[in-house]
């Protein structure tokens, strides 16, 4: 069963990606990330001295502030902040700068929207995780690896498409928003970071789903997400490399 996509993409094809770094002057690190018409701006301030609330003598703390395109932030924004915070915490090496706080601010610039439903949906999550990740690199925050976020849409027939637009989203019955570690180029020594024969890059950092699906369909989404990971990782590497010194 095939589905014709409105913009003529193949099911596994992502929207055109664009990433530019150091777009803000005063921030320690910043990046803008766009996937098709969705655009998110991320800024990183820190590491700065820990504020009392987040103080931890052993680890650095990450704080995320999510600013929606319009209106005030509510419950959904709180949830995005929590997911983003935990995701970024897992890719940062927190023990390097103990007792500090790093603030990541996400500003939604454009939400690919023909029709706008306010208040639900996680469709901005992948884009902002990718943006935050690029901004952290720009700020020089020590990271274990990068995070690559992708959205899979599941149609009624069990057909999976990657990176759906908002218009396409309305025809889907369920979604899986997945974050993986970026795929590595180097060959790791045997058994170093592998768990039961699976490479690190197939492990899930974050998974959020929406709508009901069969268990098998979820694993199908996982597979497709992993396949896209390689392409996304290559893009991330390409767009982060030229600005590295040397």
């Amino acid at each position, binding site marked *: 069963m095939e589905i014709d996509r409105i913009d003529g993409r193949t099911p596994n094809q992502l929207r055109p990606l664009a990433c530019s770094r150091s777009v803000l002057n005063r921030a320690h690190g910043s990046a803008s990330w766009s996937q098709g018409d969705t655009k998110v701006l991320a800024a990183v301030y820190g590491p700065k001295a820990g504020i009392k609330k987040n103080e931890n003598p052993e680890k650095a703390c990450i704080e995320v502030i999510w600013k929606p395109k319009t209106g005030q932030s509510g419950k959904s924004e709180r949830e995005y902040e929590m*997911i983003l915070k935990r*995701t970024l*915490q897992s890719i940062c090496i927190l023990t390097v700068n103990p007792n500090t706080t790093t603030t990541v601010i996400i500003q939604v610039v454009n939400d690919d929207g023909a029709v706008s439903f306010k208040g639900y949906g996680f469709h901005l999550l992948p884009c902002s995780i990718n943006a935050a990740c690029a901004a952290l690199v720009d700020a020089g925050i020590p990271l274990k690896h990068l995070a690559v976020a992708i959205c899979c849409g599941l149609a009624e027939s069990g057909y999976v498409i990657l990176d759906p637009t908002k218009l396409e989203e309305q025809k889907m019955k369920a979604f899986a928003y997945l974050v993986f570690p970026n795929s590595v180029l180097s060959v790791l020594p045997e058994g170093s970071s592998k768990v*039961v024969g699976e490479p690190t890059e197939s492990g899930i950092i974050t*998974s959020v789903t929406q709508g009901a*699906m*069969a268990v098998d369909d*979820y694993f199908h989404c996982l597979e497709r997400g992993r396949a896209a990971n390689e392409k996304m990782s290559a893009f991330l590497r390409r767009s982060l490399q030229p600005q590295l010194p040397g």
Partner: protein
Amino acid sequence: MGYSNASGDLSSEMEVDAFRRLFPLRFYERHLAELIRPDGRALGKARDTTIALGAVASADGSALAKIGLTTMLAAIKMEVMTPLKESPDEGCIVIEFHMPPICSPLVRPGRPAEAAPVVSKQLSDTILRHVKHFSVRSFSGMIDLKDLSLVSGKAAWMAYLDIYCLDADGSLFDVALLSAVAAFSHLQIPVVSMNDEGKLIVVSEENGEKDVVNKEKRKLRLNRIPFSLTCILHKKYILADPTAEEESIFETVVTVVLDTSDQLVSLYKPGGPALAFTSSVQDCIALTKQRLKELQTILDESISGMEVD
């Protein structure tokens, strides 16, 4: 280390306690190596679960759910409202999750708990199932909002579901969902009748009014009830139904929600240092399937217990 010969005297007892506080991760890992947890549970076993229906007399439906020490009180109030223009034959459910300072030392008065809006949002996502279809508004959630309609375009039910966390000892979402489901299955929709001005008013059952609008529809139909299980991932171990202590030590949690028709409603893993591989995801889902049967039996028992009274 005093830990291994904890056979009797007080001094070694003290040392175990000190070891637990100073090196919580190592304390737990030594237990896990023996496939047991400090509270005596096997790794995949959930804590004792109880449901008490009808805990709040003034509410239209209520339940008190307990898993281990985590306690939640859920109550539903029904109100008649005018339905929205875009959905004239649908009611509405408003879900609110409260974490008052009584529930945990982490919650301070005056400052809302960090976890509260997140659990609240997760609950509404699970119960209301926010996926709108473009063409067909097919429905896959637990409650069909059409069942809450009274008079199309004129009147519908607005259900206010409030969940209070009384004791937060881990797996908050699991208990909150269980108490919400139990409260909905206990819900008795009040009787309403039309008054002279054409307005719907709630009437008490004793004075048998003549034009009762909803004579038959007193119970809400629940299809595909969701149940959830939170698991901790740590190295090769999977710990089901963690306590607050376990959650703070291991940090990586996965919450799986399955419904009674074996559909995956949610697989929620917000970051965390451990990665979830296919095999561990499969294990978590298998544990949730077992747990779903347990919870369903417990819920059914408490409902049939109510009917006897």
